[in-house]
């Protein structure tokens, strides 16, 4: 436990150091960087991804993965747009899109939790399939012209200078933090992620837990998709395509282990800050979008590689010290005999 805590502190310290570095460089380049307006803008640009990252943390800590989130986002956005276009009132269209997200999550959850298929394969099928349903709905069109209140909610400030999506993110972050770190359900997520078999034999209903998490993942992704539609003001078949890479990167960079059972939301929160500030800083330096993605790819690999290298170096040193001690003992025994 103590070593876990130390590892955690070290990891978060590492993230904090990177964050400080990024912020210092950014401020020195652009004094306007630390203004509230720019900070809000920086959050707003990726708000849908970081909302989904919160629930992705639950999925990965629970020992699974959900590759289908970006497709669920796209499906929800397309469904909202198509239903609205066919004359349905907007609130009802949004509600149905959210329900569709729940169905997608339940679909994934059923195959993973109750049939026992690997989540990598199931959600890969979901990733392709849900995107496919979105394409059937919208074909190659682009649908816009939403009601004004909808796009205003997506783009304009709601409470003080904060837009709705940011308020939602803050609320969800607080909620997720309480559930994962301070509630019994949160403990179960870790226990199942650490060792699902042991958890099952201890009488935990692992299937229900996994099902619940996948449904939450579908619902939150659908919500993020609707928010994205509101922010962009128009929807296409490829809306949110490829977002899963960024979302998973944030979670893993936050110190969550891909094998489950390890990580926390404080780390994920810091990783969100690091990635948003890094992207913003690179934009200030006129670095293009694909290079930004590449840099984040490098960061993703390094975030796992560096601790491993340190660990390996330490093991090697320890082994060498142990060998030396052995030699030492051997010489002592030979002297005494």
């Amino acid at each position: 436990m103590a070593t876990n805590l130390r590892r955690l502190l070290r990891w978060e310290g590492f993230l904090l150091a990177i964050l400080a570095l990024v912020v210092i460089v950014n401020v020195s380049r652009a004094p306007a960087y630390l203004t509230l307006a720019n900070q809000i803008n920086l959050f707003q640009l990726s708000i849908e991804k970081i909302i989904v990252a919160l629930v992705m943390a639950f999925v990965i800590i629970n020992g699974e993965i959900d590759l289908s989130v970006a497709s669920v986002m796209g499906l929800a956005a397309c469904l909202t747009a198509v239903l609205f276009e066919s004359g349905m009132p907007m609130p009802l269209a949004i509600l149905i899109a959210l329900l569709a997200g729940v169905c997608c999550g339940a679909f994934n959850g059923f195959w993973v939790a109750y049939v026992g298929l690997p989540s990598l394969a199931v959600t890969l099928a979901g990733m392709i399939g849900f995107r496919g349903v979105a394409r059937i709905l919208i074909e190659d069109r682009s649908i816009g012209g939403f009601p004004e209140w909808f796009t205003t909610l997506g783009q304009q400030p709601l409470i003080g200078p904060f837009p709705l999506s940011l308020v939602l993110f803050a609320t969800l972050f607080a909620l997720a933090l309480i559930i994962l770190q301070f509630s019994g359900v949160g403990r179960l997520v870790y226990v199942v992620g650490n060792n699902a078999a042991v958890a099952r034999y201890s009488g935990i209903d692992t299937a229900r837990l996994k099902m619940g998490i996948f449904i939450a993942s579908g619902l939150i992704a659908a919500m993020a998709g609707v928010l994205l539609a509101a922010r962009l003001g128009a929807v296409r078949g490829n809306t949110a395509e490829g977002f899963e890479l960024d979302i998973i990167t944030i979670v893993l960079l936050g110190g969550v282990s891909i094998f489950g059972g390890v990580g926390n939301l404080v780390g994920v929160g810091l990783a969100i800050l690091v990635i948003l500030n890094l992207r913003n800083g690179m934009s200030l330096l006129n670095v293009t979008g694909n290079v930004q993605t590449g840099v984040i790819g490098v960061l993703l690999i390094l975030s796992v590689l560096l601790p491993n290298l340190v660990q390996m170096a330490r093991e090697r040193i320890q082994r060498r010290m142990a060998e030396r001690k052995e030699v030492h003992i051997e010489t002592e025994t030979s002297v005494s005999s």
Partner: protein
Amino acid sequence: MTIWWQRLRPEQIRELSLVVLIGVALLIFSSQIENFLTARTFNRIAASVAIVGMVAIGQTLVVLTRNIDLSVGSIVGFTAYFVGSQLAANNAMGAPAAVLLAIAVGGGMGLVNGVIVAYGRVPAIITTLGTLAIYRMLLINYANARTVTVDSLPAWVVELSRQTLFSIGDFAVRPLMVVTLAAVVIFQLVLIYTIFGRRLYAIGSNPEAARFAGLPAQRIVLTAFTLCGALAGLAGFLFLARFGTITAVAGQGIELESVAAVVVGGVNTFGGSGTVLGAFLGAFLIDLLGQGLLRWLGISEFWRDALLGLLILLAVASDAVILGWLRRLWQARTEVNHGN
């Protein structure tokens, strides 16, 4: 006292069922769709299966070791563009040099993946998600918004995809397909008869046991990733030959198609079972169903992804069901044997 079907291994059952499925699909489509069983349909399927199938061979090697390579789409795109621009700059370059260049570039990228996974102990999904973005970034920077065009390429490259080596009736056999088929045969033999091949299965079935048995697990995983990259590089060359016009988005999505082919082909995502032939048949079945269903049901191209997703899920689910059924069957048999 065993009947022939009791001696079949699960992967052979899988391959057999794929062949049967392909046969049934061909029968249904040819009876329902006018002019389905023509050379044109065959050539269209062959041209796209040649590329995805080549990538799927490498993906199989990696998945067998309980890893995954999601960066292959970017490797295909990068090699297609890189080799294309080299050929455009130097029209005198010969075919062997171009192919070797493609294999070397792809192999180098695969080597990087392998080193990070095997020696850096970074999970394959993290590594290759990262390199998927990194290799694509390299390509976009290298391409700098330019396009490799058909006219700039030497004539023999474009000819490769149109030439007919020999024809059986109306079915023209094109060089691209022959290259991929040859690779399937070679790697199927490698998997069955070489030490390296058997070790891939050993590592995937039980990595710890393989390590305790003294297998050089790291080196084998590294080799699998390097071969996967090299095959993706070769696929990049095929991509160049087929399309001629290459932009910075070339090959996007092939990583998913190759994983889909591997999964439908019966390669276990937890490693240790599956064959190259199965993955190739999987790629073929996916393309055949895609072409056939779209024309049979008269539905638009937009249904393709939804069908593909469903197909992958069916493949994985049926795999789990079949495996459970076989396990029970074998258990019953051993109990009977013990009773005797």
